[in-house]
């Protein structure tokens, strides 16, 4: 028993088979790498932005005659914040870190430099923020306190991040469109060079739908090996990149690496299945149009 699809497989695109495997591996790798980068960048940036936007920095300035905020005041503030640890997270910025970020590490404590007391709290509850602000003013004995919400300062960064996401998405669309056109043109060239054979099938009574369905399935089968290989390749590549660069993102918890790897893998699999199904329908529609146009000879 011979099968219609087997004949099409052996007749059409026989010479292009290796080319199809190669090109589908390269281009689908490019497409899936965009998916992996977009997803990982999206995940990273949204996690980072979410965490940062909850932060508020408090800067308590010294009185004129003070080089440092007195220890009893900072202790009282720390104790107050610790008492609220169920509702908020807080970080006290170490004075050495302030010096380091200002490039003043070599300056001795005996110099005239006065360092403020800086701490950050993590909460998006405005009521708690106001309460902390009011309490800290009173604990700090009416020293000057500046409060900066990170959310206001993140506007520029988030618009920059969105621009990067848009660029990745646009590149993805461009490559996917080029790939679809490339496949379409290779198929069109193969169909035209084998048209005598296809016309014979049409005269025998093969419908445009049957022809387009069988040819599309045959083409997809030629793309599948390259697509699977490219998915595995991109998954391994993204894991490697995360291993190399992701370790510094210490604000994620330890399970993050495993979580992001598993989700990347699932997303890549889902994408490749969806991509192949969409490509199958796209090819079917194109081929159906091709055969319907040639159903009758027209002069």
């Amino acid at each position: 028993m011979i099968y219609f699809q087997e004949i099409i497989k052996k007749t059409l695109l026989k010479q292009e088979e290796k080319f199809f495997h190669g090109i589908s591996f390269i281009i689908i790798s490019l497409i899936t790498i965009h998916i992996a980068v977009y997803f990982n960048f999206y995940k990273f940036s949204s996690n980072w932005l979410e965490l940062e936007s909850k932060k508020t920095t408090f800067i308590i300035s010294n009185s004129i005659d003070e080089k440092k905020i007195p220890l009893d005041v900072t202790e009282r503030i720390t104790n107050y914040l610790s008492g609220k640890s169920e509702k908020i997270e807080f970080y006290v910025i170490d004075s050495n870190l302030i010096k380091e970020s200002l490039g003043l590490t070599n300056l001795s404590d005996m110099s005239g430099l006065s360092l403020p007391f800086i701490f950050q709290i993590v909460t998006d509850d405005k009521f708690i923020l106001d309460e902390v602000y009011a309490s800290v003013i009173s604990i700090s004995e009416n020293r000057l306190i500046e409060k900066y919400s990170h959310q206001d300062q993140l506007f520029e960064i988030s618009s920059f991040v969105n621009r990067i996401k848009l660029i990745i998405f646009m590149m993805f669309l461009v490559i996917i469109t080029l790939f679809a056109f490339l496949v379409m043109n290779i198929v069109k060239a193969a169909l035209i060079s084998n048209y005598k054979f296809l016309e014979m099938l049409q005269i025998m009574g093969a419908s445009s739908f049957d022809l387009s369905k069988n040819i599309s399935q045959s083409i997809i089968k030629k793309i599948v090996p390259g697509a699977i290989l490219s998915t595995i390749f991109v998954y391994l590549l993204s894991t490697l990149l995360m291993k190399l660069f992701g370790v510094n993102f210490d604000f994620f918890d330890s399970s993050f690496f495993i979580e992001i790897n598993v989700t990347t893998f699932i997303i890549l699999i889902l994408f490749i299945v969806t991509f192949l199904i969409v490509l199958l329908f796209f090819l079917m529609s194109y081929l159906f149009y091709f055969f319907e146009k040639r159903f009758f000879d027209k002069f």
Partner: protein
Amino acid sequence: MNEIFFLDNISIFSKKKKIENINLKICRGDFFVIKGSNSTGKSLLLKLFYLKLLPSKGSLFLNGKKITEESKKKIIENRKKMGVILQNDYLIPFFTVYQNIELASQIQNLKTSFAQRMNEISEWLDLDDIKNEKIMNLSNSQKQKVVIARALINNPNIIIADQPETFLDEVSTRKIFYLLESLSKLGSTIIITSSKDPHIKSSHKILELN
């Protein structure tokens, strides 16, 4: 007699050829021959019968129903019931004779047993010895016989042939014409173009194109 084809004042205009004002009726069991010198449009007219072409003017009726661009489903059904033999017809070179014929039976959804029908046809056309040969190893006359066998596998009601004697020797040509006539007597409608007058008989319906 059952009317199979009715051509009502049909004209076909192609880029190079023109066939005008044809009125004819072909009935069940007719042996219809289209005659004419080269480039008179015999093959063009034949395309109309195997429904690959629609008339530029006039109406074509098949089994009493008008064939239009919209009746594609009906056209596909009718194409499956036809056996078409074309000049330089396409056979798949790396498949065997058997597989090439089997392909036609699959597309046309052969109702009876393929093996039984294949045996009958192989016997008629002397294909028994080459049944398992690949097409690329066959001579032109053997290929022509395979094309004929492929057209007949589905026991078609209508057989359309464009110069079926092409590449065949005198003995084989006579045999093919005898076979087609027998099928016509059994009720199949035969429409052929032919350049060989000795095989055309007075019982045949003839259309001469100028």
